[in-house]
């Protein structure tokens, strides 16, 4: 499974690896700040409404998400922020997969696919239990 590009770009030594680092870094930064912004709005709305976090919030309901956000309900923004936070690492792996496929690094592309597969198993296993 050894291939030349992988050896040539150990760490962040090659220009291709450095470019990928920068792309992934931007993705992580944007995802994190988008998540924090949504959470901050949700917390602001929660506090402004005088509600206690301990009163118990709703479980995740994808069908209600858009409606809650449009109606400026704290739950909508909080769930949106949490989903973006949890999805950002997977998006990072997907972006890495594209990068490795472009540079022909088959082993690292396979590693990326396997990571996404493990995350998919988490979703499927939890959905099946739920």
């Amino acid at each position, binding site marked *: 499974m050894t291939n030349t590009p992988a050896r040539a770009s150990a760490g962040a030594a090659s220009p291709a690896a450095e470019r990928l680092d920068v792309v992934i870094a931007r993705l992580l930064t944007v995802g994190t700040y988008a998540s*924090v912004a949504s959470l901050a709005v949700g917390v602001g709305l929660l506090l402004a409404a005088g509600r206690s976090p301990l009163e118990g919030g709703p479980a995740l309901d994808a069908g209600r998400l858009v409606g809650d956000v449009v109606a400026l309900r704290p739950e909508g923004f909080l769930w949106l922020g949490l989903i973006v936070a*949890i999805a950002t690492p997977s998006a990072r792996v997907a972006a890495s997969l594209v990068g490795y496929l472009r540079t022909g690094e088959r082993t690292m592309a396979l590693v990326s696919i*396997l990571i996404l597969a493990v995350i998919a198993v988490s979703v499927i296993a939890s959905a099946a239990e*739920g």
Partner: protein
Amino acid sequence: MAVGLLMVAGGAAAGLFGSLLGLGGGILIVPLLTLGFGLDLREAVGVSLVAVIVTSGASAGVYLQRHVANLRLGMTLELFTAVGALIGGLIAFLLSEQVLAGLFAAMLIYVAVAMLRPRADAAAAAGDPPAPEAEPAAPSLGVDLGGPGYTIRRFRLGAVGSVLAGVTSALLGVGGGLVKVPVMHLVMGVPLRTATATSNLMIGVTASASAIIYVLRGEVDPLVAGPTAIGVFLGATLGSRTAHRVDLRILRWLFVVVLLYTAVQMVRRALALA
């Protein structure tokens, strides 16, 4: 409203302490939510996992931008941490609260003892890898995962350690750096600075693999997770900008006292649940 502000403030304190001492905020979030706000332990772990994802994201981006983190090594190892997190996330729902509280207390005591030990030697602190081992470096999975100035050793042991880190993260709601950094630095020969940055990069995938399980099983309350995550994020951001101005010696001792006190409370909780 007062409880919401208290939760933000408590999260900020956890994030600040964790950031100043290089531990991440996760280790204090679960005690904060269980002992401070009376949450169920599993629910607190779910919230903590989300908070550490949010907190680690921004700093992981900075580490990558500066090419301090090793993306290739991080991705390869996080395949194993993700598997561990999946296993841990499923096991967490089979264990009693009593056992989880006991495990958490054990982790707190371990961290407190580790903080009392003499710091890493000067070479390690300077970011140099440990002295070369007799065992030759070998490509891992057929790919050279090393970086400038270092090669990866004992990959299989590192992979096993990564699975353990993933299980720990999923069970206890921490980033897993307590396991990953020593494994990468001492076992695999990665320079300390790179190991720390790469561990931070890996937190997202590791924690999200198990956070998904907690969310889909209804163990994450958005009303708690939001204020806590915002607080931890703000505290960690402040900590990363002020760490160089703070005398960490007193803070370290204070933190050890807090950890031991929290461990005692966790043991009492475990016994009360019996």
